[in-house]
């Protein structure tokens, strides 16, 4: 059967490339690239703040910054990384890739899509503008009252308003993804043939819709407590209520970040193992299970508040239950590699590194779910280590894996392979040097969020290893940045499908034209391009 042309080539409007065309664009690919540039800028900003934190803690009684400044820096490090980098960077890839993967012309609501992006930028700018008015937010990214109600100046108010804007941005984006995925798939692409990254963006969006409105409610109450004399969380109100609301949002947020990362790995591993993904349905069910369980485990952030025994028990059991679908994903990825023919192109290296690091983060999570242990290690550097192995390995290894994988599609050029492989190893060593010693620091009693510490046996050495590691990590990030910039001009021309990949985005040109596809191949499985290749092989044989 011949495939119908979606858009006659003659009717395509001339592509505009000027500066103004970027400001006014509603093309999902350009919006995706704008998202990517802005979120990577915030990543560098958050990373610089992390370096200040590491310098301050390098020695006992550090004096690099004052305690006040330190508090602002770690607050904005966390806020920036969570709200301005790891969540919206998924929207960057989602924007660019999802319409292409499902064979669509654009997102369902292109103008709404542009609005989501500009709100992200304004939200971030609002938050950071507090520093221009004399006081940054200084209560940690969790902003627990009563401390956050008492915090002087308007740093927290800017923070709250900025987060409101970011929430609206994410919610609009999530609605857009869901509408796009449900209404705009190519003919033949049933839900059971949908690429796994798109599946993960579906659950990312559902979780955002469930979680962020609750955060917005809590933040509104906090704003009223601070400025209009209400007492939702202070005096006769309840500080614990805020924690319940915050973590009802906060834990799903972890999976909002992790699921698209899982999706990227699920795209990369089969392509570079030259096999179909092992257990496609099991992986989708596992993602669904994680998304559901993510909403019923928030209390494990609150064991030290003294919840009742049955509530503690529920949150412990529900939390460790997440290990099961997470394990299924890992086993299926390794199952895909098993007996494969693995090509070590950079995306695959990042994917294998990610699986290993995420396993460490997942296993240290069991310590935190079994709450007597949590009562010792929560709010210590053990937790800092744990969530960087989870929330940090996703952006550094899964997202950079995704970047190395899709960069040729986005730019039409290949990244330098040698430099990419070197940058992986530098990042891998730097990441482990930075975060692994933090487990030991927490176990030996170092609390998180302390601006200084007294001389203590062992603490200084481990902090120094972590500080050195953070600089190694930074070198790795710079290497990736240099590679991306250099390859724009000097990279080898990629062609439509440099990886012999499986999904529809590789069917069109690199970069794709504004209308994405001139025509679409038939979709008979979750690997339409692999089907196309095997059809061609059969034709070649029978044609002899």
């Amino acid at each position: 059967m011949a495939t119908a042309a979606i858009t006659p080539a003659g009717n395509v409007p001339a592509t505009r490339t000027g500066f103004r065309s970027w400001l006014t664009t509603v093309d999902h690919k350009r919006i995706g690239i704008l998202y990517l540039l802005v979120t990577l800028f915030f990543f560098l900003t958050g990373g610089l703040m992390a370096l200040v934190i590491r310098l301050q803690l390098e020695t006992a009684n550090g004096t690099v910054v004052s305690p006040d400044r330190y508090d602002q820096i770690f607050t904005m490090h966390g806020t920036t990384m969570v709200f301005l980098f790891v969540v919206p960077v998924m929207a960057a890839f989602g924007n660019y890739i999802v319409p292409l993967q499902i064979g669509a012309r654009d997102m369902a609501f292109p103008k709404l899509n542009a609005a989501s992006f500009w709100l992200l930028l304004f939200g971030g700018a609002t938050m950071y503008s507090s520093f221009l008015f004399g006081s940054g937010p200084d209560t940690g990214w969790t902003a627990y009252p009563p401390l956050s109600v008492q915090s002087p100046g308007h740093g927290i108010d800017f923070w709250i308003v900025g987060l409101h804007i970011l929430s609206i941005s994410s919610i609009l984006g999530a609605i857009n993804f869901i509408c796009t995925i449900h209404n705009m798939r190519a003919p033949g692409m049933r839900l059971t043939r949908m690429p796994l990254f798109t599946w993960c963006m579906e659950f990312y969006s559902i979780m955002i819709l469930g979680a962020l409105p609750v955060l917005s409610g809590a933040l509104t109450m906090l704003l009223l407590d601070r400025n209009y004399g209400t007492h939702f969380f202070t005096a006769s109100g309840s500080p614990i209520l805020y924690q319940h609301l915050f973590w009802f949002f906060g834990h799903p947020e972890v999976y909002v970040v992790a699921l698209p990362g899982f999706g990227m790995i699920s795209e990369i591993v089969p392509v570079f193992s030259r096999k179909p993904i092992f257990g496609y349905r099991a992986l989708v069910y596992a993602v669904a299970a994680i998304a559901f369980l993510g909403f019923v485990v928030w209390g494990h952030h609150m064991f030290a508040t003294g919840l009742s025994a049955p509530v503690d028990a529920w949150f412990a059991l529900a939390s460790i239950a997440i290990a099961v679908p997470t394990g299924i994903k890992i086993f299926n990825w390794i199952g895909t590699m098993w007996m494969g023919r693995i090509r070590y192109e950079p995306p695959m290296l990042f994917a294998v590194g990610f699986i290993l690091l995420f396993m460490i983060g997942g296993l240290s999570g069991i310590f935190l779910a079994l709450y007597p242990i949590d009562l010792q290690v929560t709010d210590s550097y053990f937790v800092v280590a744990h969530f960087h192995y989870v929330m940090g390995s996703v952006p550094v290894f899964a997202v950079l894996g995704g970047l190395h994988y899709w960069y040729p599609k986005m730019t039409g050029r290949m990244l330098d392979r040698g430099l990419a492989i070197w940058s992986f190893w530098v990042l891998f060593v730097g990441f482990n040097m930075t975060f692994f010693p933090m487990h030991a620091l927490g176990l030996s009693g170092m609390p998180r969020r302390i601006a200084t510490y007294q001389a203590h046996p062992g603490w200084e050495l481990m902090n120094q290893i972590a500080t050195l590691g953070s600089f190694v990590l930074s070198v790795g990030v710079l290497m990736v940045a240099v590679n991306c910039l250099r390859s724009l001009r000097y990279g080898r021309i990629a062609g439509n499908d440099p990886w012999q990949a499986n999904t529809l985005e590789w069917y069109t040109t690199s970069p794709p034209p504004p209308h994405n596809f001139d025509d679409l191949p038939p979709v008979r499985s979750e690997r339409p391009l692999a089907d196309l290749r095997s059809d061609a092989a059969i034709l070649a044989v029978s044609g002899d």
Partner: protein
Amino acid sequence: MAGTATLNQPESPNAQAIDSIYRAVLGVTVTIFVLVGGWLVYSAIRFRERPGRTYPDPPQVRGSTQLEIGWTIVPVLILVGLSAFTFYKLPQVKDVPKGAMEVNVLAQQYGWTFTYPDGKHPAGASTLVVPVDTPIHLNMRSKDVIHDFWVEQLGQKQDVFPNKTTHTWFEAHAVGTYQGQCAEFCGPGHATMTISVQVVSKEEFRSYMAQKAIS
């Protein structure tokens, strides 16, 4: 100083119970990491494509229901085992022994005030003096924001709130000074909000309480 892979030397029954759960979980998780991580690294190396060789297409296996069921059930069993052990040990962590000495604790930015049943306070800022081998029950409240009482060798953390009383306990089995500090971020002075628990012999404690040094 403790080893880098374990909690600091526990000196109270609750800390010891947590330590035993910790060691069980450490043993299981390290084993899982070695097995699964080993499987990953083995697969990653064993099945790599080497340059200059030609390979047949790998088997296009799409999954295996038996394996999926297997690697769902085995982790469930392991987790059930770990949970059961945790709940078995839980009373030793949470239950306050009978006949404990009651001490009231007031936390504020950035220090701790301890009050004995007779209304006296120990001498020295943020210092608690208690007898050895005696269960101590702490009734804690905050004057301002949320704090957290944590002396690692003497057991679990407990948050301290302004609007409700929370409780924790310990029973030190060795004489000495135990250092701890506030473990819930409470403002710019958070890092300086330390706790010192001095555990003395029972005789020494009796004479300490008789002194005028404590107000």
